[in-house]
């Protein structure tokens, strides 16, 4: 038992615990709602008061992944008994599956564009941040401020010029165009964040590596990068979240080919009435990649393990 002044009392511990749990519940509630709605039937999803206990159904997911048409009884009879579980769900509504929906394609677009732009923002941002941190760059402070200033207006303010530029350059509705755009927007963030992290790493480590027989790039790769991993990982998460969730430019600049999931998910509503379970199913799946990415990088988010071997 320690009696330090910073040791919280039992009541303080309980208080803090209750506070954290309450906050977590409030934050998680919309998520629980969305995940639950994805497994409700359309009728349950709009029931009032909302049903907390319900019969789970995969109808939302089936609707999300398929396009369906209403069929006459003769047509349905001619098809014979439904053979698969998802056929059964659809036939129960007197509908038949006409083909796969565009959701997987849109989802995959999001993956390519989100992770692609994050990759470039991190690689370019790390290179620029290293240069700003370690070399004598002329007008360094002004350049850094300029880079930050690109963030001072909402990107959507320049939507029209960008739209026109993209059209003339043939970048409209292409993956490359969207990756370029999101990289450009994220780059200022990544340069600034990573610059801060690299500044914190004393230059003595690199000097020691240079003396130990390594080139500047090898010193960067073997000594600086492992220590900056924490910062780079958290920056990557920020960049991915922005690119993954971005809606306005995606609506404006993509349509048939490179459309990402955010503009696609709302369009699900229009297909055969207000299909909330399908929308919720799409939103649930849409949440997963960022969650998985964050979980994978979480060990790099633990700070404090790499600091303190230089005497200051």
């Amino acid at each position: 038992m320690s009696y330090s002044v910073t040791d919280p009392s039992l009541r303080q511990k309980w208080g803090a615990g209750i506070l954290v749990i309450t906050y977590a519940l409030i934050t998680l509630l919309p998520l629980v709602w969305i995940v639950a709605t994805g497994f409700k039937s359309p009728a349950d999803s709009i029931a009032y008061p909302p049903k907390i206990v319900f019969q789970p159904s995969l109808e939302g997911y089936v609707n999300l992944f398929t396009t369906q048409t209403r069929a006459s009884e003769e047509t349905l009879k001619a098809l014979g008994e439904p053979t698969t579980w998802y056929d059964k769900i659809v036939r129960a509504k007197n509908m038949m599956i006409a083909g796969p929906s565009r959701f997987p394609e849109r989802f995959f677009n999001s993956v390519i564009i989100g992770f692609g732009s994050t990759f470039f923002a991190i690689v370019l941002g790390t290179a620029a941040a290293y240069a700003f941190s370690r070399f004598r760059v002329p007008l360094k402070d002004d350049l850094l401020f300029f880079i930050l200033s690109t963030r001072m207006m909402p990107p959507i303010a320049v939507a029209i010029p960008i739209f026109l530029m993209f059209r003339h350059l043939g970048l409209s509705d292409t993956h490359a165009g969207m990756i370029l755009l999101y990289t450009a927007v994220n780059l200022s963030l990544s340069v600034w964040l990573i610059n801060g992290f690299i500044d914190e790493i004393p230059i003595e480590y690199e000097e020691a590596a240079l003396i130990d027989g390594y080139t500047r790039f090898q010193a960067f790769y073997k000594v600086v990068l492992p220590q900056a991993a924490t910062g780079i990982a958290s920056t990557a998460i920020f960049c991915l979240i922005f690119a993954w969730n971005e809606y306005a430019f995606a609506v404006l600049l993509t349509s048939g080919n490179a459309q990402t999931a955010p503009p696609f998910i709302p369009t699900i509503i229009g297909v055969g009435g207000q299909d909330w379970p399908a929308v919720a199913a799409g939103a649930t799946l849409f949440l997963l990649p960022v969650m998985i990415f964050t979980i994978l990088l979480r060990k790099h988010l633990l700070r404090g393990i790499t600091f303190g071997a230089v005497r200051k």
Partner: protein
Amino acid sequence: MAEVRLDGLTKKFNDSVALNNVSITVPDGSFVVLLGPTGAGKTTTLRMVSGLDTPDEGDVFIGGLSMKGLTPAQRNVAMVFQQYSLYPHLTVRDNLAFPLKSPLLKTPADEIRRKISEVAEILQISHKLDNKATALSGGEMQRVSIGRALVRNPAIYLMDEPLSSLDAKLRSDLRVELKNIQANLGATFLYVTHDQIEAMTMATHVGVLDEGKLVQFGTPREIYENPISIYSASRLGQPRINVLPAHLFDGAPENAHSIGLRPEQIEQGKGEDSLVTRVEHLGDQTRLHLSFKDHDLITVTDAHTRLQSGDIIKIQPEKPFYFDADGARLA
């Protein structure tokens, strides 16, 4: 190992001159110690030799070859930094292996293992090899950083106050150990320190730096017994040389401005009276703080002296140093 020659090195940082036309020859297999207060240019000199900084003028020759334009890696030098600079993301073992694994050396794995255990033994860090570098005490970090230099066999070892943060016992152990290593390997050392005991015991040559200039270069004995200025004289000697106005004692040369008296240059029991103001018993010796004609001086006396503060003792100079008004040695 090789001879290292610094030829007219000059380095300016903005307007301040860090090094002013410094030329030193570090003979093959010698142990050269650079002495001087903070800002004298000791560390800058090491950085010039290592290639971490480039001189504005002058050149460094290692084994007779000009190092102009060569990177630190290409010079094959090992350096111990004052800030230990251990790689924090690696274990002690990996820190020691780091230079051996470099593209420069590409040492085979069993050779690496052998060298690491050998060096760890010498530095008494064998039991810490699998610790993270950050999970060490200051003294252990410093030993690992010395070890990271010793695993190599470079043209020259550059050391920037490597023993400064160790406790007294370890420091004296490592002093002997470093000197042994240097003697056994015939290694060349360029070593920066504030500590005059390190300078006196390890150095084959001492260079005294003053505001970027090399003011004296010679063996430790030469510098101790024959300093060219007050500045040089006060670099070595414990307690420090006493500098007093020359006219306080008889027999000063005409143009002498001050007189320099090391403890052994003060003869006790003869001459004029001085007041004992404080007696410090250090065990093996006793220091006397004296007041002589209103000037303070410190000397050393017999360990078992009965003198107490308030006593009167006669003193007179014996073969003292005389300096002119600029502090340069006269005789």
